């Protein structure tokens, strides 16, 4: 009997896992952004002394995991599972990192939804009594993503208004059966929504329906309203996606205009830093969650936050073949004091 399930898609934890340590590492551009004070490490050089951008990304993820474990006052031996993913083909950043960490590893591909996807799975493992401590992590790198999904860096192409800027960074969260919060109390894993958007440079527009679907399902399953949250934040819908979510949710009778924002909007000053529709990438929600949101929850600025990373599950091949972009969004409820 699945006693922890409520409604159609949501899980309510009986023993809510606590976040006991986080870390966030970002590149120089992110370090120049509005959230600069919240990150643990800001790199001066986005290759971090490595020979390739891919190696730099793996190093960021590895250091983020080690730092999160250190911030939780634990050692790697105390962690039972590593759950991580990234954007690169065959999730190499995560697997090379897992090689270094040396503990049992679940590799995920959820594109930019990886942070909350890994937290959903990690939280279920803890609440289910399968582990005492797990670490969830993800990373992305502007330059490794550009060369895989778009153009060489020095090519003089113009970016569209709707395009977003992949965040260079890595974030990690240690979840534990014992801790003082913030706790993950509910999760609403999302389903794929695809409205046939084929433009891979408008990911916010492609992913917005998935975000709306997950939000509606979350409110329906739990009986909460947007006003029950101090902050509702999506992963990387950017300016266009956020506008669509507010608009569509209003039509469904939910007012998100007051307390809803997007990590892709928070992390960059879109005008000053010329990031068009905002930030994107796995690290976008990862560093905003593990930096800004976690630290502000610890301070008590927010007591109840809904975080929903969003993913565009296309590939360079599917884009060339004219296939549409499947979107997904996984929501987690973070609370300082479980109700």
């Amino acid at each position, binding site marked *: 009997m699945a006693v922890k399930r409520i409604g159609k898609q949501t899980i309510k934890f009986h023993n809510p896992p606590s976040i006991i340590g986080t870390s966030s590492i970002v590149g120089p551009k992110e370090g120049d952004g509005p959230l600069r004070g919240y990150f643990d490490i800001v790199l001066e050089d986005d290759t971090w002394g490595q*020979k*390739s951008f891919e190696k730099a990304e793996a190093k960021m993820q590895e250091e983020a995991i080690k730092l999160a474990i250190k911030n939780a006052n634990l050692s790697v031996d105390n962690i039972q599972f590593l759950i991580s993913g990234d954007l690169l083909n065959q999730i190499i950043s995560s697997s090379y990192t897992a090689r270094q960490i040396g503990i049992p590893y679940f590799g995920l591909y959820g594109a930019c939804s990886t942070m909350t996807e890994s937290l959903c799975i990690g939280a279920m493992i803890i609440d289910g009594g399968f582990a005492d401590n797990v670490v969830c992590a993800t990373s992305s790198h502007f330059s490794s993503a550009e*060369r895989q999904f778009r*153009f*060489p*860096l*020095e*090519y*003089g*192409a*113009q*970016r569209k*208004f*709707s395009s977003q800027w992949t965040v260079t960074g890595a974030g990690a969260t240690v979840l534990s059966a014992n801790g003082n919060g913030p706790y993950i109390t509910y999760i609403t894993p999302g389903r794929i929504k695809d*409205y*046939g*958007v084929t433009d891979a440079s*408008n990911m916010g*527009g492609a992913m917005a*329906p998935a975000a*709306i*679907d997950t939000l*509606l399902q979350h409110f329906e399953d739990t009986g909460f309203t947007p006003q029950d949250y101090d902050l509702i934040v999506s992963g990387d819908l950017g300016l*266009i996606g956020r*506008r*669509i979510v507010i608009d*569509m949710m209003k039509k*469904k009778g939910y007012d998100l205009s007051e307390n809803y924002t997007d990590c892709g909007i928070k992390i960059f000053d879109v005008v000053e830093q010329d990031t068009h529709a905002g930030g994107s990438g796995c690290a976008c929600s990862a560093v905003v969650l593990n930096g800004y949101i976690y630290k502000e929850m610890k301070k008590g600025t927010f007591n109840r936050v809904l975080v929903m990373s969003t993913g565009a599950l296309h590939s360079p091949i599917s884009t060339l073949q004219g296939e549409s972009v499947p979107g997904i969004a996984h929501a987690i409820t973070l609370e300082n004091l479980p109700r």
Partner: protein
Amino acid sequence: MDNMTNKEYQEYLKRKIPKPDYLNNSIRAFIVGGTICLIGQIVRNMLFRFGFNEKEVVTGTAIIMVFLGSLLTGLGIYDKIGKFGGAGAAIPITGFANSIVAPAMEYKREGYLFGVAAKMFTIAGPVLVYGIGSSIIVGLLYLIFTAGR
């Protein structure tokens, strides 16, 4: 949301995206493209002054402009010109040089064979294939219609 068809959503989405400023973009393209052509013209006139003949000047101008485009790509400047000037920077021969040098630099880590050499033409390849292809077709048509005259 549920009652929206794919087509309705795509129409709705189109209205949410800001329209590009065509006039501003055209002016920028004109300035950048014009400046590149002006530099080309100056190079051409200089070469004539050095006493080269028409055929040598055409080749020499192309070589110098390709060199300049490649140099500016290597220095990390051409992508900024491209961002500002759009088609004005992409269409001239300097843009063609940029489209070859940029991937050659980018894929050096994957080795000289399958990185630099293989990826060099990922952007310029289609231009070469259809450019040379169409010139052959035009050449054949010219031959057919002028044969026997």
